[in-house]
């Protein structure tokens, strides 16, 4: 699932609303963590390297065992992206992503910067964490 969003702060809410559509298939605790991470991924994308084309792509890819979301933007062609420092991570909320995601990372493919976070889904056999709609 890919969603093109304008490169502005209000896109955080659009991403959260997209995630909430998955409430029947993803446990509430995981979904809450994903919403927090979405806030931070989108915000850091807007602040560290404002997208050159004015849009951000928000992507989600779910399997039985995990769900990955990613934020992609086209870097400004006048220069390479500024490396993320430890201070940036604290400032921009990537610490939050590190706390709530099972894995996360940042990659550059050509002029596209992709920041992603992966969340493990509990086993469907685990009654305690199965979403209510599935019980």
């Amino acid at each position: 699932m890919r969603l093109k969003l304008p490169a502005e702060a209000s896109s955080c809410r659009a991403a959260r609303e997209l995630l909430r559509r998955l409430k029947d298939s993803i446990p509430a605790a995981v979904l809450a963590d994903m919403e927090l991470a979405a806030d931070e991924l989108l915000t850091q994308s807007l602040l560290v390297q404002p997208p050159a084309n004015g849009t951000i792509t928000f992507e989600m890819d779910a399997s039985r065992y995990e769900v990955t979301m990613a934020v992609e933007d086209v870097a400004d062609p006048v220069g390479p992206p500024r490396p993320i420092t430890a201070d940036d991570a604290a400032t921009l909320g990537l610490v939050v992503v590190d706390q709530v995601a099972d894995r996360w990372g940042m990659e550059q493919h050509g002029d596209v910067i992709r920041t992603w976070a992966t969340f493990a889904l509990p086993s469907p056999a685990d009654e305690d964490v199965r979403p209510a709609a599935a019980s």
Partner: protein
Amino acid sequence: MSNAGEPQSVDPQPDRPDLAEQPPSPGALFRLLAGPEHVLAPERSALAGYYRAAFSSDDGETLERYLTDAGHAEILRRRAAGDLTLSSEEFRQWTVAPDMVALEARYHAEAGQGA
């Protein structure tokens, strides 16, 4: 609902007299003391889309304020630029009283402005 380009004031909340406040004087300055960070739910979990920050006013009062996504991004942008001070107009534009209803009202107003 709102005048074009003119942020609506959404506080004080009429049912929260403890949040009633006078508009800051035009020349007042507010300095970021802490945050922004996510608002915590009663069970201490962070709430996506709800941010808070603490400011000090000219007279030394400490003020907790809530922020929308737009306010959060603006405060982070200013902080990254090394600027921790907001004018009274910026303070009113980017923050609301520390109340979830006030924050939701601000979100509603921002949506009406295409923010």
